[in-house]
């Protein structure tokens, strides 16, 4: 019967609440308490033995929660957040009001820094591993040697800021400290790193894969440098391509030191492929995440019309059996058989069936 989501509504001075009780101006007093704490609220300047009534979000609180005129909340939980008001006995004058917010102090924040636009700069982003349920503020400091650098906060998302490189090729490490503070405590974390180690481009963009006409085992793949990489001519990227047919789990990999295209020449005919590309600066840093996957199937020859050939076979054969397969009928689909044994398997099956057919002539 306690407290749903706290109201944040402000009421004008001297307004009358729905219950007919007087209200006290705008409530601006907020009280923060830890989950599990015992909370005692005094009814303003009222004596301990004064007759009072407490409400929580407009609902009367049972006298069993009172110690004299004090309200005692034991082992508070998140659901007990809300507006608490205390009224004098019979006059119903509002004597005290507070907004109780139950929460937790912050745990050690998770901080990450990365340069996806080298050599312009890098960004750091952070989050809390678990919510505190009360407002938090974050402060970040970036030190390079003896120099404190400015981290310009993004408007969105709020938990990120950017730093511009003032020097390149420095052996001096960067030290980034993030401190998170709320009404119940604070916590911090520090990252120390070299300029090169955090360089990680965004994935390549606009990956396109197309079949090659008249080539049943080829796929042409093309992509673009990530748009966030500011100067690919001076800071070229290398690429890693991976591909596999959908029916298999194992990837093939190709590393490409230049260019933004590649022709796969060993695709299985007729099989749909999934293809992805990753990027890395030629000299420093780590590989990007994989690009969005694209699908493509190598070019296939149009299947020949079976009815026409069956008719040709019937008019020329002396056999009374209709079992003998026409010479152009595919006994097995080569594309369904993986590996160099595909042709041998098809011919063997053909011979067996041909021999079986002879028995019935």
């Amino acid at each position, binding site marked *: 019967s306690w407290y749903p989501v706290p109201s944040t509504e402000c009421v004008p001075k001297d307004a009358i609440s729905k219950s007919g009780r007087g209200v006290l101006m705008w409530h601006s007093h907020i009280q923060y308490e830890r989950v599990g704490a015992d909370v005692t609220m005094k009814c303003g300047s009222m004596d301990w033995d004064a007759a009072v009534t407490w409400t929580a979000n407009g609902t009367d609180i049972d006298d069993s929660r009172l110690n004299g005129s004090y309200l005692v909340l034991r082992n508070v939980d998140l659901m007990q957040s809300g507006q608490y008001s205390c009224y004098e006995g019979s006059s119903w004058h509002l004597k005290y009001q507070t907004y109780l917010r139950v929460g937790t102090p912050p745990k050690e924040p998770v901080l990450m820094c990365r340069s996806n636009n080298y050599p312009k700069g890098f960004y750091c982003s952070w989050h809390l591993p678990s919510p505190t349920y009360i407002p938090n503020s974050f402060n970040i400091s970036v030190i390079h040697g003896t120099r404190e650098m400015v981290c310009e906060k993004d408007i969105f998302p709020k938990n990120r800021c950017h730093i511009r490189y003032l020097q390149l*090729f*420095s052996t001096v490490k960067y030290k980034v400290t993030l401190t998170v503070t709320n009404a119940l405590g604070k916590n911090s974390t520090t990252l120390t790193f070299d300029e090169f180690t955090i360089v990680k481009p965004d994935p390549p963009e606009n990956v396109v894969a197309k079949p090659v006409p008249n080539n049943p085992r080829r796929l042409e793949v093309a992509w673009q440098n990530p748009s966030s990489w500011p100067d690919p001519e001076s800071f070229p990227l290398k690429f890693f391509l991976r591909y596999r047919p959908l029916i298999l789990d194992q990837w093939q990999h190709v590393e490409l030191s230049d260019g933004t295209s590649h022709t796969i020449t060993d695709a299985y005919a007729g099989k749909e492929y999934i293809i992805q590309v990753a990027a890395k600066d030629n000299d420093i840093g780590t590989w990007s995440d994989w690009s969005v996957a694209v699908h493509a199937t190598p070019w296939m020859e149009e299947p020949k019309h079976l009815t026409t050939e069956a008719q040709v076979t019937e008019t020329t054969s002396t056999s009374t059996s209709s079992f003998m397969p026409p010479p152009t009928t595919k006994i097995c689909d080569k594309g369904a058989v993986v590996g160099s044994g595909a042709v041998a398997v098809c011919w063997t099956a053909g011979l067996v069936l041909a021999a079986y057919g002879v028995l019935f002539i």
Partner: protein
Amino acid sequence: MAAAETPSAALRRRDLCSRGIRLARKMRSDVADLLDAYVERQGLDASASVAALDGVPAAAAERWGEQTESQRLLDNLAAYRAFRALLTEMLEEQREQAAPADAALREALAAVLLQVSAFAYHLEELLRLESRGPPGEEGAGPPAGPRLGLFERKLRGLGVLRELAQWAVRSTRDLRQLAKPGPGGGGGGAAAPAGPAEGQ
């Protein structure tokens, strides 16, 4: 600013830059291996901070993107000449210590010294192509300082190799800038566009 290049000079420049980039990348890889071996053999902490060292050219550059071609070449040449002297000194110190277990370290150091010398020569060639010619070498070796204790020398060696590793990356970037055709690369003195933001 140099006069417009002849086609053969442009070709020679691109060739020198390409080979220089390959040399710088190989050097960087070998210096990385040498650093690991050095840290291990000298009993150092790989993450130890080393303060700025006198006589060791720092690779760090402000406004790197705005440097002219000449400045890039001259800065690189000065650095590698200094490293040539510093590595020679380190090699002498290693030989004095003469611990048999360090023979592999000395060999690796000698190999890197050879690459540094080769790269310095490469840079001199590029400067000759600019009709500028390389400046004369100012001194025979690094400035003489107070004799350091053993630990200080080890730390200094760590600092030298770290800066050399950074220089190898920087040189790769510098040569790519030089190899770019058109204004700002390949025969002009104009500044390259890439680089960090201006003065903060």
